[in-house]
């Protein structure tokens, strides 16, 4: 559906996007990740025909962005980084204007506007001036504007920035609901968001493609070795920390156990796994079988920014493996906790 080949975009002096290629299939949701200044917005601007590439090519639904921009524009809904709103227009008026320039037949327009207003939860501000909306509502109107003409391809530049937690969830659900019929590229800095809604991830840094992969592959690759925080309560207080520690070290796949602290009989450890090993089930079993209580067990989160600092510092994907840990799968496995009771 979307095909990018050797895309390069050079501003007066600096190269914003440097020879990147990727493909997106129909119905996929793709997360576009990268630190600030990576070139995400620039790539999206090329895809939406806002600016031509310096070299290389990009096509949407088989239409080249330079040869047949009209066809591409008809099929794309675009939410720019700052929602493109006219402060002196009312929300309904604005959507009407956008509908017209997107070529929606006038007869269908009121219905479409009502639909998207409901989907994006902006029904109650329809008569408000855009200039008087809060940041979150601006973002919602921006999203409504992007999906108004029901485009095949949606390009969303940080769609959840500025939204409240409730609305973030709604927006993610909305985006997930649009998948299938629509092909979606969204940029974000939030890794859990990608894990939740995207099937595929494209990572760029400093204009270069660092990785493109499915979410599962990528997270396991980023994780490489896993770091787990574990809290154990030896029932009778008899087991000294050293005993517990040596028991944990015996679990298959564990490379290192660090005793953090002991408080009120609770022992905290940080456990690192060998590369590519899942140690959480083994750890839980070891604790339970020893007759201790397993109070807490969770993977430790590593923010995307940290990952990217590492990735961009060395310029190669393998750097990910050097990372101590990745990704937030924060909640402990519930089964483990139940077993301990």
């Amino acid at each position, binding site marked *: 559906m979307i095909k990018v080949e050797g895309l390069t975009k050079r*501003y007066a002096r600096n190269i914003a996007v440097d020879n990147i290629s990727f493909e997106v299939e129909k119905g996929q949701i793709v997360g576009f990740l990268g630190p600030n200044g990576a070139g995400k917005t620039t790539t999206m*601007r090329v895809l939406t025909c*806002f600016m031509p590439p310096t070299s290389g090519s990009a096509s949407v639904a088989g239409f080249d962005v330079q040869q047949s921009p009209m066809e591409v*524009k008809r099929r*794309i809904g675009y939410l720019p980084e700052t929602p*493109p709103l006219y402060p*002196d*227009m009312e929300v309904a008026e604005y959507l009407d*204007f*956008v509908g017209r320039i997107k070529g929606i037949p006038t007869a269908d327009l009121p219905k479409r506007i009502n639909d998207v207003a409901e989907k994006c939860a902006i029904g109650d501000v329809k008569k408000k001036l855009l200039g008087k909306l809060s940041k979150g509502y601006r973002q919602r109107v921006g999203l409504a504007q992007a999906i108004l003409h029901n485009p095949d391809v949606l390009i969303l530049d940080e769609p959840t920035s500025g939204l409240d937690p409730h609305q973030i969830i709604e927006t993610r659900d909305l985006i997930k609901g649009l998948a299938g019929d629509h092909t979606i590229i969204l940029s974000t800095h939030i890794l859990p968001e990608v894990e939740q809604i995207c099937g595929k991830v494209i990572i760029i840094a400093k204009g270069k493609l660092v990785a493109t992969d499915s979410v599962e592959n990528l997270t396991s690759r980023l994780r490489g070795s896993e770091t787990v925080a574990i809290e154990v309560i030896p029932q009778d207080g008899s087991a000294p920390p050293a005993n517990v520690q040596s028991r944990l070290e015996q679990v298959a796949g564990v490379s290192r156990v660090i005793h953090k602290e002991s408080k009120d009989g609770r022992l905290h450890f940080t456990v690192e796994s060998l590369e590519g090993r899942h140690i959480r089930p083994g750890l839980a079993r070891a604790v339970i079988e020893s007759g201790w209580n397993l109070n807490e067990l969770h993977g430790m989160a590593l923010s995307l920014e940290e990952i990217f600092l590492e990735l961009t510092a060395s310029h190669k994907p393998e750097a990910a493996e050097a990372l101590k840990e990745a990704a937030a799968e924060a909640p402990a496995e519930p089964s483990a906790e139940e077993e301990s009771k």
Partner: protein
Amino acid sequence: MNTFTICNKEMQSYFRSPIAYTVIALWALVGGFFFYFGLSFFVQRSMESAMQGQAFPMDINEWIVRPLLSNVNVVALFLIPMITMRLFAEEKRSGTIELLMTSPINDIEIVLGKWLAAVGLYSIMLGVSVLHMAILFRYGQPDWRPLAVGYLGLLLQGACLLSIGTFISTCTSNQIVAGAIGFAVSLLLFVLNWVSEFGSSVTDRVIGYLSVQAHFESFSKGVLDSKDIVFYVTMIILGLFLTSRSLESVRWRA
């Protein structure tokens, strides 16, 4: 269709912001002053000549309409940059240009729509001064044809300067800068004919030919000269062409 949508949006935006009211109020005020002044002068002169026993009916067209047209022409020169300065500069500043340029509409439609809205506001402004003229018809018998030609001239000259102002607005994302440069350029185009008053070499005459004011003279005399109409239409097309080219380069530089 898209042109009309854009034009409509711009027109509404003029009347939501203070711009339309400011422009029209200034026009009515300053134009009204010139009109009052011209009229008083005329009345005084005609009374004097009546007392000296000369034949009364002095030509209203000659004495009121023509000076008035030249004077309001200068007023329009000041107001035109106010009309065009925000057209593209504001879209560039706020990022809404991204919406327009990623929508399935031609650059030409955007340019035409915006320019037409500017011409629309300018025409409304001219319309206000038609009220002055109505007074002349109420109390005198001016010839309406030269008057209509004069207004056509004002409209054409305005449309020409508006297209150039629109072009200048695409070159910056700062309204004030667009307004200032627009005014300077309009003023220069206005007074270029001074050059040909000092020299008569070919260059001087070519430069003089580019003066928008020189081409207005025939209109203010009530003469419809096709050469002048061609000049204005050419300038309008040139301005709109430059605007769409400049919009294209906005894409490259973004």
